[in-house]
C-alpha cells in the first residue's frame, strides 16, 4: 500500500511516502526551495518522495492531509470577527487567503496530484501531531503530549496511544482551545524580545539561561494554572486574534517594561559568561527566564494530568513547543514519566510522517517496532558532478562576495583530495580529524539530508569542542550567529556518559538533539566551546548503526582528542534552511571562513597564502 502524507499551508510544508508500512522518504519542502519554514504546496518534496519510491501519483492508494481545513477556517474567521470593529484587515486577509486557496486544500491536492478525490483523507492537526509522536515511538502504549501555537481549534492536546489488535488507537484526554496557547504566548514574548516569532523561539530559550525568573509571577498570573492541570491565558496581554496590531498589547509592556527593538545590540556571550551585562539586557534575559520557567511549570502540570489518565510510564511529545529542549529535559527529570520519545521533527514538518504512518497502520497489520524510523529520510545527491565543476571554478571570483569580515585574500585556491571509497572512510576521517585538531572549521556533507531542523552528521558544521577561537570564528565569519546562542556537540554512544550527566537507560533519548543536559564538571573544559552559560548542552549521541560514517569521524577525532566528541552545528547560512545540495554547501564554503568542505569521499580545502 502506498500512502503519501502531506502538510502545507501555515509553515513547514512537507511530504512523506510510506510504502508497505515503511517510510521511503520524508522531507520538508524548505530544503528543496531554500526558503526556511516554506509553507507552500510541497511540490518538490512530493516529487522526490515519489521518485525514490519509483511510483507515480496514479500508484498512490491514499493521501493524508495534516489538518482539517474546514474546522480551521471556522477558527480563523471566528477569531478575526471577535475583535470587531478593529479587525477589518485581519478579516479581509484571512478571508482572502482562505477563500482563495486554503479552504480548498483537499481539492488542491486532488488537482495538483491528478488524483481521485476518493483517495484523499485528512485528520485534525493535533491528531496528526499525536500520530507523528506515537507511530514512530515503538511503544505499545503511551501518553501523548502535544503543545504548539495553534492547530485547527486547539493549542494543546493530551492523548493516549495504544496498539490494539495490530491497529493504533489514539484517544483524546483533553484539548485546550485557541486562544489559550502556551506556544503563542512564547512566540509573543519572542516578538517582545525583538526576535522573529514562529522562527526564533530557540533564541528566547537560549537567552533564558542568562537570566533569573524574577518576572515569573507575572507570567503565572497571565498563564493561570487550573486545578485539573490545564491552564488559561489572560487575553488582555496579547493580540492572538488580531495579530496585525502586534502579538502583544500595551498591557504587557506596562507589566514588563519597554520591548526590545529588533537588531538592538544584546551584550550576552555564551563563550564569555563573566562579561558585564547591562541592566536592560539583564531585564530581557530575566523576562526570557521567566517565560521559560512558567512554560515548564505549565507543561509539568499537563504531564501530571496526562499521567493520571494514561497510566503508563511512556510519553511521546510533539508540536512546536517540543523543540524546547530545556522543557523536555525537565519533563524527563520531574514528571512521572520515565521513558520519552520525541520524533526527529516534532513540528509541523513532521506531521506528514505521522499521518502517513497512521493511515498505513489503519490499513495493515504493522507492528509498533516495525514503524520506528531514523532521521536520515531526506534526499541524497551525487557529489561527482560538483567535484567536476570545481575544476572550472575560479575561487578568486568570489572575493567581492565574501561574508562581512571574512578575509577575501584567503580565498585564492582550492585543493580537492579524493579518498577511495573502499578504504576511504578511515583515510578521510583521519585527514578531517587532523584538520579539526588544528582548529579548522569543517563542513561535513554526506548522504541523505536530515528530517527536521537539527544537523545530525549529514549536513553539519564541525569544530574542536574546546576551542573558543574556532567557535567564535564559526559564529562571526561562517554562521553570522548571535553570541548568546550556544553551540552543542555530537558524541559517540561509547563516550556519552563520560561527558554527560545522564543515566545509561536514557542515552538513546539523545539521538536527535532534543534534550538539554548538564555536562559532567570534570569534562566541561573539554567541551567548553559547545556549552551554554549554565554548563548544559543539547547533545547528539551518535550510534554507529544510525550513522556509521559520522560515527567513524567522531571516533577518529576521539583517537586524537581523547574523547569522540565534536562541536556540531547546522550547515546553513543565517536565515536559510540546512543546505540540501553539494552546490549549496560549496557556496557556503566559498563565501565564508570555512577551512574544509567534505563532500562524500572528497575533501576540499582552501590553500591559504603563506
Amino acid at each position, binding site marked *: 500500500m502506498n500512502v503519501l502524507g502531506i502538510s502545507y499551508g501555515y509553515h513547514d510544508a512537507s511530504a512523506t511516502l510510506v510504502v508497505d508500512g515503511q517510510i521511503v522518504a520524508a522531507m520538508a519542502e524548505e530544503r528543496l526551495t531554500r526558503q526556511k519554514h516554506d509553507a507552500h504546496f510541497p511540490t518538490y518534496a512530493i516529487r522526490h518522495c515519489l521518485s525514490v519510491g519509483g511510483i507515480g501519483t496514479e500508484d498512490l492508494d491514499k493521501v493524508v492531509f495534516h489538518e482539517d481545513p474546514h474546522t480551521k477556517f471556522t477558527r480563523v474567521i471566528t*477569531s478575526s470577527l471577535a475583535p470587531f470593529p478593529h479587525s477589518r484587515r485581519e*478579516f479581509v486577509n484571512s478571508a482572502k487567503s482562505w477563500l482563495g486557496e486554503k479552504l480548498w486544500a483537499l481539492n488542491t491536492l486532488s488537482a495538483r496530484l491528478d488524483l481521485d478525490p476518493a483517495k484523499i483523507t485528512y485528520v485534525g492537526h493535533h491528531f496528526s501531531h499525536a500520530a507523528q509522536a506515537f507511530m514512530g515511538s515503538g511503544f505499545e502504549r503511551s501518553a501523548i503530549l502535544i503543545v504548539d501555537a495553534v492547530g485547527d481549534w486547539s493549542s494543546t492536546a493530551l492523548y493516549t496511544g495504544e496498539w490494539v489488535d495490530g491497529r493504533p488507537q489514539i484517544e483524546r484526554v483533553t484539548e485546550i482551545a485557541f486562544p489559550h496557547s502556551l506556544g503563542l504566548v512564547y512566540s509573543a514574548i519572542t516578538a517582545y524580545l525583538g526576535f522573529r516569532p514562529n522562527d526564533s523561539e530557540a533564541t528566547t530559550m537560549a537567552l533564558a539561561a542568562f537570566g533569573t525568573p524574577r518576572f515569573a509571577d507575572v507570567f503565572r498570573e497571565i498563564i493561570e494554572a487550573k486545578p485539573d492541570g490545564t491552564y488559561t491565558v489572560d487575553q488582555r496581554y496579547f493580540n492572538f486574534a488580531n495579530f496585525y496590531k502586534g502579538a502583544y498589547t500595551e498591557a504587557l509592556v506596562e507589566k514588563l517594561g519597554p520591548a526590545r527593538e529588533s537588531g538592538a545590540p544584546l551584550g550576552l556571550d555564551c563563550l564569555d559568561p563573566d562579561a558585564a551585562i547591562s541592566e536592560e539586557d539583564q531585564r530581557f534575559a530575566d523576562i526570557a527566564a521567566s517565560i521559560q520557567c512558567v512554560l515548564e511549570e505549565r507543561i509539568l502540570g499537563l504531564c501530571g494530568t496526562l499521567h493520571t489518565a494514561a497510566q503508563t510510564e511512556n510519553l511521546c511529545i510533539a508540536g512546536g513547543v517540543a523543540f524546547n529542549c530545556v522543557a523536555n529535559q525537565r519533563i524527563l527529570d520531574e514528571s512521572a514519566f520515565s521513558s520519552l520519545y520525541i520524533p526527529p521533527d516534532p513540528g509541523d514538518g513532521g506531521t506528514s510522517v505521522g499521518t502517513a504512518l497512521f493511515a498505513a497502520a489503519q490499513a495493515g497489520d504493522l507492528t509498533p517496532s516495525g514503524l520506528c524510523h531514523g532521521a536520515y529520510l531526506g534526499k541524497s545527491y551525487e557529489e561527482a558532478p560538483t567535484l567536476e565543476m570545481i575544476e572550472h571554478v575560479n575561487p578568486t571570483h568570489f572575493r567581492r562576495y565574501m561574508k562581512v569580515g571574512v578575509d577575501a585574500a584567503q580565498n585564492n585556491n582550492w585543493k580537492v583530495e579524493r579518498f577511495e571509497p573502499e578504504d576511504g572512510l578511515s583515510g578521510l576521517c583521519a585527514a578531517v580529524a587532523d584538520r579539526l585538531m588544528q582548529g579548522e572549521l569543517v563542513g561535513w556533507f554526506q548522504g541523505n539530508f536530515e528530517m527536521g531542523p537539527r544537523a545530525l552528521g549529514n549536513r553539519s558544521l564541525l569544530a574542536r569542542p574546546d576551542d573558543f577561537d574556532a567557535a567564535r570564528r564559526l559564529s562571526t565569519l561562517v554562521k553570522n550567529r548571535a553570541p548568546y546562542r550556544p553551540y552543542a556537540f555530537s558524541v559517540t554512544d561509547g563516550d556519552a556518559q563520560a561527558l554527560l550527566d545522564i543515566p545509561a537507560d536514557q542515552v538513546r533519548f539523545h539521538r536527535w538533539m532534543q534534550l538539554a543536559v548538564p555536562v559532567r564538571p570534570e569534562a566541561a573544559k573539554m567541551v567548553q566551546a559547545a556549552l551554554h552559560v549554565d554548563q548544559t548542552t543539547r547533545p547528539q549521541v551518535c550510534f554507529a548503526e544510525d550513522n556509521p560514517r559520522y560515527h567513524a569521524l567522531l571516533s577518529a577525532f576521539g583517537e586524537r582528542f581523547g574523547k569522540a566528541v565534536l562541536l556540531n552545528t547546522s550547515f546553513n547560512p543565517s536565515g536559510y534552511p540546512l543546505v540540501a545540495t553539494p552546490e549549496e554547501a560549496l557556496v557556503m564554503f566559498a*563565501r565564508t571562513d570555512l577551512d574544509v568542505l567534505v563532500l562524500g569521499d572528497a575533501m576540499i580545502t582552501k590553500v591559504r597564502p603563506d
Partner: protein
Amino acid sequence: MSMMERIKVRALVSVFWRSKQTMLSAVNGFQATEADGVWHLLRGIEGAEDPKVRATLFEHMIEEEAHAEAFGLVCREESAQAFVPTFYEREDIFPTGTPIWKLIAYVHVGEVDATARFGVLRDALPPGRLKEALKTIVADEEGHIDLTHDLLLELGASEAEIRKTYRRVRLRRAWEGWLRSGKRIVNWVAVTLLSGVYFVMAPFFYRTARAKLRQNTVEYDNNRLKGAQ
C-alpha cells in the same frame, strides 16, 4: 526602460516610498526575486551536463545570492521589527529536461530588465543604504547581461537563434507581467468586497465569535481519518 516607466519609478520613490514600510516591503520583494533567481540557477546547475557551464552558473549564482542578502540587509537595518523575508512559491521555468540554454536566455532577459529598473531606482533614490546597495548590484547585473549572452554563444547558439529566443522570453515575461497585474486588480476587488462583507456581517456575529473564543476546551471529534476511507 521606456520614458513612461522611468517616470513611474521616480513617482514611486518620491511619493509612495515616503512611507518606510512601503519602501521596505518593495525591497523585501527585490530580495525575494533575487533569491528566486538563485534557486533557478541552482536548478540549472543540477540540469546542466557540461561542468564548465555549471561552473559559470555557479559563479553567477553566488553574485545573485549576495544581491539577495544585500537587499535583506537593508530591510534588517532599516526596520525596528524582526525581518521576515518574502517567499515565492517555487516553480520551474521550464520542464525537467529542457536544454539549459533556454534557462540561460530567460535569465539574460531578466538581467536586462533588472539592470534597467534598478538603474533608474538607483538614480532616483536619495543617498542611503539602498542606493549604495543598488550601485553594486547594477554593476554586477550589467556584467551578467554580457556573461549570459556569451554563454549562449559558447553553447553553440547562433545570434539569430538567440535573438529569437529573447523575443519569446520577452513575450512570456510580458504575459507573466499581465497576469501579475491581473492578480493585483483581483486582489484590490477582493479587499474592497471583503471589507464590505466585514462591516455588514461582523456586527451580527462578533458576539458569537467572542463567546466561542471564551471556550477553554475543544469538544468536536477530530480524532479519526476523515474524508474518503
